[in-house]
């Protein structure tokens, strides 16, 4: 990361980098609605601490002076954290998420909190209670979601990197829509401590950056065991940056029909071109079909809402967040939740409550958990034929604001290619490759088994070079 090495060498200062980030945010935030809160005071303090470390001759860290944007479901002490919901308006977390502790220790400068679909439930950032975020590449279009603010912040050059979370595609799809690299790490690689929960068995925090190398660097910083998250893998962070230029020679890459069929022609064309580029770089391309992936969407839209209905039961007006007073506790709970949650969150809570309710549990939630097992087995079989899988990230390029907001099922279908990985707990990333008919970026998706991040970054780097990116 050029900024970090320049800050460490004294060629620039963290405070100067912070100031130019602030200027970029001010220039376009009114238009794009990316930052919900700009933490100017915190950013100045963090930048000065980095500059003091440099002045004392200390190692200022892998991310020395690098401005970073944080999705608003990551708890940061004393910084308003809403998860895009009215129910948490004005809440100040009393602790830092582990990923925030780690980026601070590495010298990064958090610039503030960025917009997202309410509680990460959405694929366009239109379900935020604080208004939609616009795509910096074409403000009439959505940036994708739910981590739309994290993607827009980087695409609009407000910060060179950001953190988001991915439950069913919420990092990869906005990365694709905004022309960025976005990574859904192996489940458990990154601590979820301090991430406001949506669907705990699927949620993972991951990086956004302009290229594979920077994304690998940020993932290296945030990965590794954390005793505060019992689902965190009991192992140290893997070495990733050192493998980015490993190439794909000798790798078997499976082009999976179910990960691109039904996508727009302009997207399918780039997947085919990406396969050819990987073949030119020495990979063996095999065509694979994994019919089980077609069941992923249904399983996901039962499992994720079921977990959400349980996770969001905590918003009851008692311990934090909004309270709407009423005559007794039950009426207060109901009044608070009715006023505090938006329509999409209510839909998912109700869907989950229904799927878990007596008489429907076996048919819906129980079946979905079994389909999840089948999905894991299907991936295992696919990885006997191929080391990595290739497909599209999303069925289309960025769509226009409002195009799907009144049709939940159509919105859910935009996650069809990303969901299988979350169900299996595997690793995946989206890398920009080519542009569609209207000049908007297309993202192709690389998927691998758990702990395959190093190979995924190496393959992504091959595609960047083939696409003429530096």
């Amino acid at each position, binding site marked *: 990361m050029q900024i970090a090495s320049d800050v460490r060498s004294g060629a620039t200062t963290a405070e100067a980098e912070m100031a130019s980030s602030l200027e970029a945010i001010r220039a376009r935030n009114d238009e794009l609605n990316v930052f919900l809160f700009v933490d100017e005071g915190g950013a100045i303090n963090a930048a000065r601490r980095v500059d003091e470390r440099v002045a004392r001759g200390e190692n200022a860290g892998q991310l020395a002076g690098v401005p970073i944007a944080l999705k608003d479901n990551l708890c940061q002490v004393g910084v308003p954290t809403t998860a895009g919901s009215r129910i948490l308006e004005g*809440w*100040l977390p*009393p602790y830092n998420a582990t990923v925030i502790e780690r980026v601070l220790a590495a010298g990064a400068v958090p610039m503030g909190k960025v917009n997202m679909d309410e509680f990460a439930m959405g694929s366009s950032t239109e379900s935020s209670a604080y208004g939609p975020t616009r795509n910096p590449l074409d403000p009439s279009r959505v940036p994708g979601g739910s981590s739309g603010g994290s993607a827009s912040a980087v695409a609009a050059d407000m910060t060179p990197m950001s953190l988001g979370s991915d439950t069913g595609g919420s990092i990869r799809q906005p990365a694709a829509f905004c022309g960025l690299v976005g990574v859904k790490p192996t*489940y*458990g690689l990154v601590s979820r401590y301090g991430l406001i929960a949506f669907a705990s*068995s699927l949620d993972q925090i991951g990086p956004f950056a302009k290229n594979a190398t920077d994304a690998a660097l940020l993932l290296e910083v945030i990965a590794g065991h954390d005793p505060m998250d*019992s*689902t965190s*893998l009991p192992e140290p962070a893997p070495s990733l940056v050192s493998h980015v230029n490993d190439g794909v020679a000798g790798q078997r890459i499976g082009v999976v029909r179910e990960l691109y069929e039904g996508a727009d022609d302009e997207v399918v064309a780039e997947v085919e071109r990406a396969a050819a580029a990987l073949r030119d770089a020495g990979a063996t391309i095999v065509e694979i079909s994994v019919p089980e992936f077609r*069941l992923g969407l*249904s*399983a996901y*839209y*039962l499992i994720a809402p079921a977990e959400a*209905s349980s996770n969001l039961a905590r918003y*009851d007006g*008692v*311990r*934090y*967040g*909004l*309270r709407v*007073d*009423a005559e*007794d*506790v*039950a*009426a207060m*709970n*109901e*009044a608070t*939740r*009715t006023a505090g949650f938006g*329509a999409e969150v*209510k*839909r998912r*809570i*109700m*869907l989950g*409550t*229904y799927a878990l*309710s007596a008489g*429907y549990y076996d*048919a*819906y939630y*129980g*079946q*979905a*958990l*079994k*389909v*999840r*097992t*089948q999905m*894991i087995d299907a991936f295992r079989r696919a990885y006997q034929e191929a080391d990595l899988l290739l497909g599209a990230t999303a069925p289309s390029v960025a769509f226009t604001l409002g195009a799907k907001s009144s049709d*939940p*099922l159509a919105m859910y279908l935009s996650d069809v290619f990303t969901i299988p990985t979350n*169900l299996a*707990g*595997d690793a995946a990333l989206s890398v920009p490759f080519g542009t569609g008919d209207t000049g908007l970026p297309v993202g192709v998706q690389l998927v691998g088994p758990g702990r395959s991040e190093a190979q995924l970054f190496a393959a992504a780097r091959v595609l960047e070079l083939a696409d003429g990116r530096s």
Partner: protein
Amino acid sequence: MAPLRREDVAKVAKLARLKLSEAELDQFTEQLGQVLEHANDIAALNLEGVVATAHPFGLINVVREDELRPSLSRDAVLAMAPDAEDGRFGVPRIMGEAP
């Protein structure tokens, strides 16, 4: 599965402590019905003998030594509560007047 009815949605809303307007009830019945209809592809599968997966890597029984560790201070936590007094969360009354 039988199609979702308006009264099912009303019942679920009550369980989830949400109050829906008449218009919302109509809209949610239609929208949730569509999603459940889509989910019928898995409701209809014969998956007898398939083990359920609740967690991708099946981590179980993560334990640690039973020793004191720092935790959040009570004051810091209560500072963000809508109502608190004497070191406790405050809520509206739960029971009615004594007879």
